[in-house]
């Protein structure tokens, strides 16, 4: 049939007329699919980067570290390795000396004095290579050390310089570098949390380390690489046995159990769950909007389709034009999606690179993930046109060609419509009328805006929840003695130990409170929660947590989440698994204790016990942490510096440092959320713009008629704006409601699963609601302004001339 050529030309003409709309809808689709691919795809390249980074530095398969304080002559540990039954499977061995220290890199104007570690290692090891990121590495015969890279980056330290370590000894460093075990620094022991800002690692030639530690010729750690297929657990066990037989107790750890190795991979899985939520939301919002917008464009063609049917054209031919539109959007959307995917991928890549500076960052475009998203991106616009086309060809032709009939179909609302008579000019009725007259279109548009707003509210809501939690935590931490510092001792001490006295009697100290921080586990009703139990004076001291429930001195005070997870309330009893000190040493014991109350802190593990209750736990009179407030006129910095010099002090941290480290630990989430928030903003604006330009097309004739009656442009514009604002209000209302529910679900269900140690209440801040309203109602109401020019240039006679 000849008409095929005609329909193709018609389609081309359609495209020329609304290429901008096609591009804008395609961009909505692209933002959804591209971001989805970039976020979900990040797991693949992160895993790949981990693999390659660990492989590049030849990370050990087994690490054997002697018990604290134990050392051996160099060569003894390596020799022991050759004596184990699996010695044949060991490929490479290196001995190290690892000792705790304090690191002082204070410069003019900034005091940086943190706990840390000296890692003494061969200058050219066959296992665990040092990756030098700037300056130079370790050299034979050169005592210069290398600073851990993220610590150096955090404080913006030069490539070379001098630092001081415990004992106030100056050491020169010549570069920055990385070792696999220190790719990420997170989680100190005993409930204190550390990031790269608070922990300084110094890589030193073995001789330098031995000299600094005052242990010439000694080592305390050996690392091994095994042949492929070797059983690392077996090797670790054999090595432990071999060394224990020589009176050298210690622990052998296999690669899979190294904290950094494990968390680097576990983080990916944990993050991925979270990304899925955000990416899913964005994709759903974009998908819905695309479907919605394409549907509306085709709805406007229903009359033409009806006329075609009346003329006896076969249905498939009538479907060519709408399907061509869907196809155009699909193709452009998928292509733009690759661009968006690459750009957002680079953005996320940059974020991760700076948050987790691995030696190798491999970022391949996630084709597999993108193909999934693209398949959806391809199908959606086609479905979006198929639905209204199908509806159009089902209508009796005689109905389809009736003036205004289709537009006004389904007006069961007509009686209602007549009742909605607003005061004033007749055109004041129009915005509401137009909305009620075409309920399906109104609902579709509102839902399109609603989807974007819901995404926006959810993303911002998650950010709000993070912020609120940390702010609450900050507020709780500083209810009293806000400038206090937490002094951690290297060991558990009796209250009257000289080290304790040395701190509390220091001239810079105003007040102090003794606490004991121990790790334990609470059990109730088959549930188990790990605890960081702080044994402290719950009635006095420098600071007390806010406790709800009963008398805090009655028993253990759990965090609200811990109580919830254990299914207990104040007054119930829990079993507490805890260390117990006796003359024989430290053993573990289980004691039943009453839950005295709960505290609102966000860290699930944090629990408190009054010192008067410590006796049954075998913890009476012991101290390992001292809370200290500065004396009058002494700054927190001065106090910190003074206390670092006291023997036996392992670390000194401002009480607020905990929230700071949390803020940083959540950095990946918040940065990605920031990007997602920007994308949703863009998405919402695009949807509003598209909806308006479609509406302007649909209303062209009515507008021309109004102009013919001399109605000024601003009146017509105002009408469109009121209409847009009403739709925006509907959409935003639905969006904010849905967004709130999604925020609650994400934070309270999904995030609780991903980050069980961290409790967050779901919060949608007034600012977020304000932004949603401003955007969903304000910006949407203003979008008709973009049609100002279009209205001004309208060819009124031509628009009026065309019979619908």
């Amino acid at each position, binding site marked *: 049939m000849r008409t095929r050529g005609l329909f193709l030309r018609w389609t081309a003409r359609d495209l020329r007329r609304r290429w901008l709309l096609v591009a804008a809808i395609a961009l909505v689709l692209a933002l959804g699919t591209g971001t989805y691919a970039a976020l979900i795809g990040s797991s693949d390249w992160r895993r790949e980067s981990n693999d390659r980074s660990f492989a590049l530095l030849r990370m050990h398969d087994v690490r054997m570290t002697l018990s604290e304080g134990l050392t051996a002559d160099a060569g003894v540990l390596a020799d022991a390795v050759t004596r184990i039954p699996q010695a044949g499977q060991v490929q490479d061995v290196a001995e190290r000396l690892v000792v705790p220290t304090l690191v002082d890199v204070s410069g003019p104007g900034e005091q940086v004095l943190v706990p840390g570690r000296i890692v003494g290692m061969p200058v050219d090891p066959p296992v665990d290579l040092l990756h030098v990121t700037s300056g130079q590495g370790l050299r034979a015969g050169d005592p210069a050390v290398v600073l851990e890279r993220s610590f150096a980056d955090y404080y913006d330290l030069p490539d070379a310089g001098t630092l001081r370590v415990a004992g106030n000894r100056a050491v020169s460093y010549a570069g920055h570098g990385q070792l696999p075990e220190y790719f990420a620094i997170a989680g100190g022991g005993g409930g204190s949390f550390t990031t790269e800002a608070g922990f300084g690692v110094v890589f030193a030639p073995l001789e330098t380390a031995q000299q600094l530690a005052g242990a010439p010729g000694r080592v305390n750690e050996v690392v091994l690489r095994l042949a492929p297929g070797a059983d690392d657990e077996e090797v670790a066990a054999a090595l432990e046995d071999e060394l224990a037989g020589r009176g050298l107790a210690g622990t052998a750890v296999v690669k899979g159990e190294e904290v950094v190795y494990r968390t680097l991979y576990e983080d990916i899985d944990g993050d991925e769950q979270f990304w899925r939520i955000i990416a899913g939301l964005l994709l759903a919002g974009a998908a819905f909007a695309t479907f919605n917008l394409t549907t509306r464009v085709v709805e406007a063609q229903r009359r033409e389709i009806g006329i075609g049917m009346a003329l006896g054209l076969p249905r498939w031919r009538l479907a060519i034009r709408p399907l061509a539109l869907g196809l155009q959007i699909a193709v452009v959307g998928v292509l733009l999606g690759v661009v968006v995917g690459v750009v957002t991928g680079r953005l996320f890549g940059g974020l991760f690179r700076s948050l987790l500076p691995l030696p190798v960052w491999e970022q391949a475009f996630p084709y597999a993930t993108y193909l999934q998203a693209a398949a959806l991106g391809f199908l959606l616009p086609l479905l979006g046109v198929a639905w209204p086309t199908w509806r159009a060809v089902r209508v009796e032709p005689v109905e389809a060609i009736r003036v*205004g*009939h289709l537009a006004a179909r389904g007006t069961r609302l007509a009686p209602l419509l007549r009742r909605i008579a607003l005061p004033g000019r*007749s055109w004041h009725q129009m915005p509401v009328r137009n909305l009620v007259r075409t309920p399906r279109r109104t609902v579709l548009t509102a839902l399109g805006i609603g989807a974007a707003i819901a995404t926006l509210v959810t993303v911002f809501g998650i950010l709000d929840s993070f912020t609120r939690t940390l702010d609450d935590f900050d507020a709780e931490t500083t209810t009293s003695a806000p400038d206090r510092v937490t002094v951690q001792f290297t060991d558990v001490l009796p209250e009257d130990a000289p080290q304790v006295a040395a701190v509390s009697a220091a001239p810079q100290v105003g007040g102090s409170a003794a606490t004991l921080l121990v790790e334990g586990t609470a059990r109730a009703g088959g549930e188990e929660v790990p605890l960081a139990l702080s044994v402290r004076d719950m009635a006095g001291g420098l600071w007390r947590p806010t406790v709800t429930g009963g008398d805090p001195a009655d028993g253990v005070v759990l965090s609200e989440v811990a109580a919830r997870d254990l299914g207990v309330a104040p007054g119930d009893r829990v079993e507490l698994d805890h260390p117990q000190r006796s003359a024989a040493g430290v053993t573990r014991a289980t004691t039943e204790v009453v839950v005295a109350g709960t505290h609102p802190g966000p860290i699930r593990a944090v629990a408190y016990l009054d010192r008067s209750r410590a006796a049954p736990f075998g913890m009476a009179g012991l101290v390992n942490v001292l809370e200290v407030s500065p004396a009058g006129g002494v700054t927190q910095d001065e106090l910190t510096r003074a206390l670092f010099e006291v023997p036996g002090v392992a670390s000194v941290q401002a009480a607020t440092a905990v929230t700071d480290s949390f803020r940083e630990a959540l950095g990946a989430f918040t940065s990605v959320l920031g990007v997602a928030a920007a994308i949703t903003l863009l998405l919402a604006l695009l949807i509003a713009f598209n909806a308006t330009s479609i509406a302007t097309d649909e209303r062209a004739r*009515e507008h021309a008629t*109004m102009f013919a009656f*001399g109605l000024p442009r601003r009146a017509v514009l105002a009408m469109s704006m009121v209409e847009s604002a009403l739709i925006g209000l509907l959409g935003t209302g639905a969006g904010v409601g849905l967004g709130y529910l999604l925020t609650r679900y994400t934070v309270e269900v999904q995030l609780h699963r991903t980050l069980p140690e961290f409790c967050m209440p779901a919060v949608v801040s007034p600012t977020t609601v304000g932004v949603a309203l401003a955007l969903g109602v304000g910006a949407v109401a203003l979008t008709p302004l973009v049609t100002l020019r279009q209205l001004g240039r309208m060819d009124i*006679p031509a628009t009026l001339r065309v019979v619908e």
Partner: protein
Amino acid sequence: MAHPLRQDARPVVDASTTARGSRIDLDGVSRRYRVGEVTVTALEQVDLHVDEAAFVVILGPSGSGKTTLLNLIGALDVATEGRVRVAGQDLTAASRVERARLRRHTVSFVFQSFNLFPGLTALENVQFGADVAGREHPREAAAATLAEVGLEARAAHFPHQLSGGEQQRVAIARALATGNPVLLADEPTGELDFRTGVAILELLRRQAEAGTTVLVVTHNREIARVADRVVELSSGHVVGDGPPPGGRAPVSELHW
């Protein structure tokens, strides 16, 4: 059979509104469209002078430029050449705002394709006309005008619930309700049966008698018989201008 239109209908416009003047003067007016390489001449060197309160029929075959002429007079379109003056105002030099004001207060349209607002009821569509022109008591005026065209019973119906002829009558009522001194009607009887058509013409005649300048476009020679004056267009040229052949006939004598 009850006639759809009230016979005792009074003119909607009282003479006072026409005090603003409603003369129409076209001098050497041409309107050309460029479509790609081709130039379409819709009107060529048209001179036309219409007195206040005249009842003029513009007659011509399809495509002769009738709608174009109305659009120029109604300040919807701008002439390519020549001068258009309506109610003392020169439209050739008028700004967009001035033209909008003229449309609002001086002319009113009945479109060939009705262009009713699908979202407003019949009554509200009519009230729209009264509202825009700034009439007092627009709702009452609208109800009265709708009654004039015999549609008071359909006041609350939407356009899609009306027949083509009923929609056309609503469009006429909407134009009348403005009360503006120049009424431009493009094929106002195109969709109407004989009796209704005659009644509408009667109504339009009475408007002219009350002082409104009425221009009615048609290609029906029979209708032209009731005019004071018939302007004949052909291919954009005025080919005839004068009283209807055989003199003006009363509406009751028409038959088609």
